[in-house]
């Protein structure tokens, strides 16, 4: 299952990160995990939240530029070579990892990675065929 991820455009200056966080808090939305990417001039805040649609509306209403993208939440074995085993499935198929970040908590002995692929559907098929657990969004929320 694909997970909805929200991206918010931020200017790279002090105080900008607080604004979207305040908006989400006021709307009663819980942030499950987040990742902040930055360049010299701007930043991108990427968020996985418990109610993406409500969060999008709240952020847009507050004047944020919001983008919704499909990402995958993948279970990765927490031992040497765990990540490599996942990539080995995808790279020969020409699927590119645009970016990834770790989920804040583990699922049993495994880590959970949020990954944005160049081709989400193809990546999901390949991962499932190779026995790699792609979390359903529901499962993801339950795990918190």
């Amino acid at each position, binding site marked *: 299952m694909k997970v909805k*991820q929200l*991206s918010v*455009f*931020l*200017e790279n200056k002090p105080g*900008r990160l607080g604004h979207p966080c305040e908006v989400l808090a006021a709307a009663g939305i819980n942030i499950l995990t987040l990742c902040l*990417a930055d*360049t010299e*001039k*701007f930043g*991108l805040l*990427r968020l996985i939240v418990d109610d993406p649609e409500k969060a999008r509306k709240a952020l*847009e209403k507050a*004047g*944020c*530029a*919001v*983008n919704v*993208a499909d990402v995958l939440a993948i279970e990765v074995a927490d031992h040497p070579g765990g990540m490599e085993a996942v990539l080995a499935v995808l790279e020969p198929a020409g699927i590119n990892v*645009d*970016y990834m970040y770790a989920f804040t908590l583990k699922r049993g002995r495994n880590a959970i990675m949020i990954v*944005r692929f160049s081709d989400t559907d193809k990546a999901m098929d390949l991962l499932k065929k190779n026995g790699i657990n792609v979390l359903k969004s529901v499962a993801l929320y339950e795990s918190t």
Partner: protein
Amino acid sequence: MTLTPPIPPESYADFLTPEELRRIQLHRLREIVTLAYDNVQLTRKRMTDRGVKPDHLKSLADVRNLPFMEKNDLRDTYPYGLFARPMKDIVRLHASSGTTGKPIVVGYTREDLAVWTNVMCRTMAACGLHAGDVVQNAFGYGLFTGGLGAHYGAEGLGATVIPISGGNTERQILVMQDFGVTAICSTPSYFVHLIESIEKMDGSFGKMKLRTGVFGAEPWTEGMRAYIQDRAGIKAYDIYGLTEIIGPGVATECCRQSGLHVFEDHFLMEVVDPKTGASVPDGEEGELVLTTLSKRATPMIRFRTHDITAMVSAPCPCGRTLRRILRVTHRSDDMMIIRGVNVFPSQIESALLKVETSLPHYQIVLLRKEGLDQIEVQVEVTEEMFRDRIGALEQLQRQFTSAIEHVIGLRAEVRLVEPQSIARSQGKAKRVLDKRNEGGAP
């Protein structure tokens, strides 16, 4: 009478009696209006619509019956529609930015170039230059009129010209020190940049022979002049001109540094109310309107410069009988002058529209860093523009930058900003924020 020594023969026309000067002006006005009427469709049509003919010009005041010309007339007839002479007589073309994507083109006959050299010789002489001076010409050479205009003027005067053109600060400083440069031509802001670079390199003007700066192509203030004269220990003069009329050489300061003498034998000046177009009395502020009295390739009749000034008719202690205008410090339109280049906000808007078909909110911020003008274009990120990938956003930034550079010929720093972050007054964004004269250094 104090004259800056020595006065070259070219400058004799600076000292005509007012009667002689008016007689020459009327004679040349009739000639140039006839030339334009006979050869330029736009002029002929507009004059016909108003029921005026060249032989209706009985006195200089009759020029007020002629229609105005605007920069947009050059755009609408791009490239050669206002040429009054066939291409076989045109020996030079120059160009300047138009109000949108395309530049405007002006032509020069051989006689026009002689006139240009003449007025630039007189400009240099009025700034105290003479044979024996070593002139570093840091105006840009090329389609911009500054470089070649100053070049021919200084050379015509018999000075030694170093055609170094703009940019490459380290080499400029090396040449200034090692070649025994006594005078420099550049935009005032570039010279401020040179001052700051020399000071940063622990260099000193004390060891140099530099004595005079001939500065133009952009508005500057008395504060900037004081800074330049104090830090570099030179005399800094303001010169004025515009591509549509001839380039530099329309007016210049003299040793008194108090207003700019207009070369009235070649340019007829009027100062008008920018709203009504009616003449304003001497000494009152208004828009400068110029008629080229001697330019045959692209005669401009009552050209609206959009530069705000006032005419000074009082005689100048330097002895020149040419009337003066006050320094131009602002304009009646939204044209910006950045590093000597004319830029309209509409040009930047047209560039943004080439990348994003629905125009985002934007703001142009003008800054001065180490004496150099910088343009920052802030663009609000919209839903349509926003991509989740950093690379895609950076590419968008690059697309904006290159589209702007393509249109205005200058590199702007494009900065993507958050939606609604540009201040709006009554729902309309303020398009230009000029912060160049904020802070300590000019």
